[in-house]
Structure formats: structure tokens, C-alpha cells
């Protein structure tokens, strides 16, 4: 069976000569939940950025659903990104817009009818414990709330692949558990998930594949 996601000898070098990733090779099957761990600066965020096509690898190739990412034209990239949800470490939310507007953004750009947007966004807001904050500007939210808004925006259009970069970094233990439950539910519904974290507690006892990065190298391919 064809791999859902495959990285072949992917390297990323930043100017002048900083090797962020070194010949990374691994595959992810459809529906899998994979953790990527490693210390700060080990290349976790860079790896997710490359998969999301926010950056291009210096060498090597990434295949998504069998197609090399290097073959995607500038015009095709937005459509690729609609299949991939991304929970950014710095959230990347529109601070002056409301919670509702931020979450609805992913659907709006796809031309989903307003009624359906409203229905789906409000349902997700409720599920993530953000009820009552729909109209509140994001800048007024706590770090944990922003984290959940970022997660909601990433999953609202039911992506085939969900990338999450330290998605529990700003959450307390109870909220962390709630968010991880949401990830588990999404995975159970068929979404493939790659979650980058330096927090071992997140993947211990979860019986999921864990890829370990250190100084840009994959220690357990």
C-alpha cells in the first residue's frame, strides 16, 4: 500500500551553514498518530514546516498522498494546505478578530455557505470549551484559550493530516488532557496526526509511534 506521507533523505540547511535537518527518512500511514520529540532546536518545527510546504527542503523529497511536494505549483499550494491542518506554536491568530471569525476563516476561504460555517464553528467552540467567547477578540484570551482557538481553526475543515507544534505548551495539566483527548478523537475519526512535543508525558503510555530527533538527525527511523 502507498504511504500517506513519506520523507526521503530530507535535509534543510539555513544560511550560512546551519544544518536544521539531516537526511530524514520516514513514512506515515493513513490514520496513524505519530509523535515527534526531541530537545529544543532539534528540528521538530522545521520538519513540520517542510511537510506543510511553508518551507522548501534543501535536498530530498516529501511525498503527500503519493505526490512529491516539489511538484506543487504556487497556485496549487493553497489547495494542499486545505488538506493539512496546522496548530502553530505561536498560534498565528488574527488578534483583532473574534474567536468565531478566526475559526471560521478556514471555511470562509473555501466558500462554505455562511449557515454551515455558523453551525460547524459553534459546535466546535462548544466542544473545545470556548462557549460564550465567540465574539471576544482573540487578544483578550489567555494562552490556553488561544491554543484551543488555534486547534479549532486547524481542524474545522476536517483535514486529512493534522500537524501540531507543541500544542499543549501553554496549557495546564487538565487542559492538556482535554486537548489530547480531542486529538485522540480526531484520530479515531480518521485524521492522520503528527504532533511535535518536547514533553515526554504526552506520549508515554499512549502506545503510539514516537520519532526522536536530535540535532537534525532522526535517531529511530
Amino acid at each position, binding site marked *: 500500500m502507498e504511504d500517506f506521507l513519506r520523507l526521503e533523505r530530507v535535509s534543510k540547511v539555513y544560511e550560512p551553514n546551519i544544518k536544521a535537518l539531516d537526511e530524514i527518512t520516514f513514512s506515515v500511514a493513513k490514520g496513524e498518530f505519530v509523535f515527534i520529540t526531541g530537545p529544543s532546536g532539534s528540528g521538530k518545527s522545521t520538519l513540520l514546516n517542510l511537510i506543510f510546504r511553508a518551507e522548501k527542503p534543501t535536498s530530498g523529497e516529501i511525498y503527500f498522498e503519493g505526490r512529491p511536494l516539489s511538484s506543487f505549483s504556487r497556485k496549487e499550494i493553497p489547495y494542499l494546505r486545505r488538506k493539512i491542518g496546522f496548530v502553530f506554536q505561536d498560534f498565528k491568530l488574527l488578534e483583532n478578530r473574534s474567536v468565531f471569525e478566526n475559526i471560521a*476563516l478556514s471555511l470562509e*476561504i473555501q466558500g462554505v455557505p455562511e449557515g454551515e460555517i455558523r453551525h460547524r464553528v459553534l459546535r466546535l467552540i462548544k466542544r473545545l470549551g470556548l462557549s460564550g467567547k465567540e465574539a471576544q477578540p482573540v487578544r483578550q484570551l489567555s494562552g490556553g484559550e488561544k491554543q484551543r482557538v488555534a486547534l479549532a481553526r486547524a481542524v474545522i475543515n476536517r483535514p486529512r493530516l493534522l500537524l501540531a507544534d507543541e500544542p499543549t505548551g501553554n496549557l495546564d495539566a487538565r487542559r492538556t488532557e482535554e486537548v489530547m483527548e480531542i486529538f485522540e478523537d480526531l484520530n479515531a475519526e480518521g485524521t492522520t496526526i503528527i504532533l511535535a512535543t518536547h514533553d515526554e508525558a504526552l506520549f508515554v503510555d499512549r502506545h503510539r509511534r514516537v520519532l526522536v530527533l536530535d540535532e537534525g538527525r532522526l535517531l529511530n527511523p
Partner: protein
Amino acid sequence: MKKLLSRTIKEFRAAAFAYLASTLVIALGLTVFSFFGLIYFNLVHFTEEVAKELVLNVYLKPETNFTAAQNLIFQLEKNPLVAKVSFVPPEKVLEDLKQLFEEKELLSGVEAKFLPPVLLVSFKDPFEAAGKLKALSAEIAQNPVVLKVQFAKSWLMRLANIKRFLEIFSLSGLLLVGLATCFVIGLVVSFSLAQRERELEILSLVGATPGFIQGPVILIAAIEGLLASAFATGLVYTLKIYLEDAIKGFFPGFSGKLLFWNEIHLTIITIGVIALCMAGSYWASRRYLRY
């Protein structure tokens, strides 16, 4: 289209102050360009009008009969440089002289029959004719009814030089002001979008197409260009009226009316500014898209 308009309104509301401020700056830049353009345009036009007043005087022998004068008029009118030939009879010459001299005794005893009739030859383009006047007057002088040919060559050459200077000065000046205006428009559009860099980046990261992101931004830029052109045109027109009042009777030969841009000029300026704003907006927003 309806969705694009609604997104454009939303986009405008999100940064209304920045868009209004940039429209104003573009309008002021354009006003400076348009005003100086108009001044240069009028100066060149005024020089041309003054030059048209300078005619070639062909003095005929006093005994010249009307038919001989008529033949010379026909001959001169055939010349492609010539716009008009007027015949001034000796009686009119005497009358003009009497009006010219305050001391009436000076002309006492002077009879019209001793005065030469004159042909006044005006040219379609005096500056084009200036270079050929010497040869033309020599040719006219050979006609047996012609007494003398006289023209204000030095004045015409001076005016031609002034016109050439104004053309070079106005073209290079306009080019500089035009480039400065382009720079201002590009900079203002770029600055207004730089404030929204993060927003444009986020939109491109969540899967918005370049058209979705840039469409409203470019449409607003087009509206900015249109409003700025209208504002600048209105302001320059007001300045023109004020100037007309201020310089009325200031220059001899000046009619007191300044020329204003015609429909073609206004269309070119408006379309140019709109295109410039749209292009500036396209390139500035393109920089912030993460594809």
C-alpha cells in the same frame, strides 16, 4: 463578484484609517504632479500663442494695383506653412499710424497714396516656419510688386528658444515629479499593507488562494486611485481658477484664461494612477504571501 465586494468592504473596515490616509497622501502627490504639469502646459501654450502674433510683413510698392496684390496673396496662401494672409490698404496703414503717434502733427501732410499697402502673413506653426523664413522672404522679395519684406526674426528665435527650454524643463520636471509620485504611491500602498503583513501571512497559511487574499486589496487600491484622481483634479481646477484671478492682466497678450486638462488627459491620468495603485498593491501584497 458579490463575495469579492463583501470581502472588500470587510477588508476596508479592518484598516479604514490606513486606507483613507494612503488615499489622501496619493491624492496630494498627484495634485503636485498635476499642478506643475498644468503650469508647464500653459507656459508652452502661451509661448505658442505669442509666437502666432509675430507675422511676416510684406510691404508692397505704393503703386501696386489690387489684382497684383491679389495674385501675391494667392501665391502665398498656397505655401503649406502659411495660415492666413491679410491685406492692409494704405488708408488703414495711415489710420494705424495716427493711432500709434500721439503727436498728430508728425503725420500732417502725409497722404495715404504715398504709403505702401502691407500683407500680413501669419503661420500655422511659427516655430516650424522660423527656420524657413529667410528663404521664404528672399523668394517673396523677388516679386516685382514687393518693396520690402520684414519679420521679427530675433523675437521669433527667442520665443523658439524659450519654448524649447520650457519643453525640456517641463518634460524633465514632469518626469521627475511623475517618478516621485509613482514612488510615493508605491511606498504608501506598501506601508499600508506592511501593517497587515501578519494577517496576509496567516491567510496564506490557512489555505487562502492569492486571488482571495489579493482581490480585495487590489480592488481597494483601484478605488483609492480613482478617489485620489478625482480629489487631485478638483483641487487643481480650484487652483487654476484662483491663478486666473491672480494673474489676470499681468502679462501682455495673456487672455486671462488658463488651459485645463481635457477629457483625454484626465482619462490618461486617472487610468494611470489606478493602474499604478493596483500594481503597487499587487507587488506589495505578494511579498507577504507564504507560498
